[in-house]
């Protein structure tokens, strides 16, 4: 007795979307919104960006940066050396454009002057070591938790990017292939041979 052949049209791989993946990299959840999955898109956007900015605030806005210079502000490191020194940024990078000011600062690109806005002038810039030490000494454990928040937000966004690219892991449109009995037997024989 053989079962009826099944329709294999539902077993084709889901369509992938590089545009959605890039959008979700730039701003978490934007790719899902682009695909019309608004609920998930806004969940990712609010959760991950909230986590990233809360983490930065807990670290006094001094925990997302690429160390590139010495105390005098002279850049004396390459990208690899900077990432080895400050490996946190490898995780933070995946949050997208919100971590780009660190790269901008690393390459000494123009920022608002200190007189105009001290906050934006120093935003994601390598902090002064003595100032950071002073801040850490006078704080509780929140600054340590702060950089963990920023790294977790970046790492979770890798999953979000993949979701935008290929859909959820358990994709309802991707059902397991069920072969007719005859074909399954042939496949077994091929496996033995």
């Amino acid at each position, binding site marked *: 007795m053989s079962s009826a052949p099944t329709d294999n049209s539902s077993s084709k791989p889901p369509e992938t979307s590089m545009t959605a993946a890039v959008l979700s990299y730039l701003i978490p959840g934007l790719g899902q919104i682009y695909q019309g999955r608004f609920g998930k898109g806004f969940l990712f956007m609010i959760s991950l960006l909230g986590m990233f900015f809360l983490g930065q605030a807990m670290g006094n806005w001094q925990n997302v940066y690429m160390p590139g210079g010495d105390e005098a502000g002279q850049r004396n490191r390459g990208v690899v050396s900077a990432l080895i020194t400050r490996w946190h940024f490898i995780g933070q990078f995946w949050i997208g454009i919100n971590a780009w000011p660190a790269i901008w600062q690393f390459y000494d690109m123009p920022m608002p002057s200190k007189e105009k806005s001290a906050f934006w002038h120093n935003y994601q810039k390598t902090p002064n070591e003595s100032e950071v030490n002073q801040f850490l000494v006078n704080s*509780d454990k929140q600054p340590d938790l702060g950089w963990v928040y920023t790294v977790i937000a970046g790492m*979770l966004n890798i999953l979000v990017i993949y*979701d935008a690219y290929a859909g959820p892991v358990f994709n309802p449109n991707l059902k397991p292939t069920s072969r007719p009995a005859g074909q399954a037997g042939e496949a077994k024989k091929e496996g033995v041979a």
Partner: protein
Amino acid sequence: MLFAFSIIYYHLPLMLLIISLVYSATRHDDWDEILGEAFRWGIRMFGFILCVAAVLFVASFLIH
């Protein structure tokens, strides 16, 4: 001082909620499945953290 020391633990439910929700949302599209899986992952992570806390608690007695 005690408040300052303990306030960090208020972040734990927030982290559990966000991590489990986001992770589950990358595994499913249906909201019932997302929330169910998020709940299960939240319980698993909380259980793991409790185990670590218990080990550290016992270890602190052994060291003294």
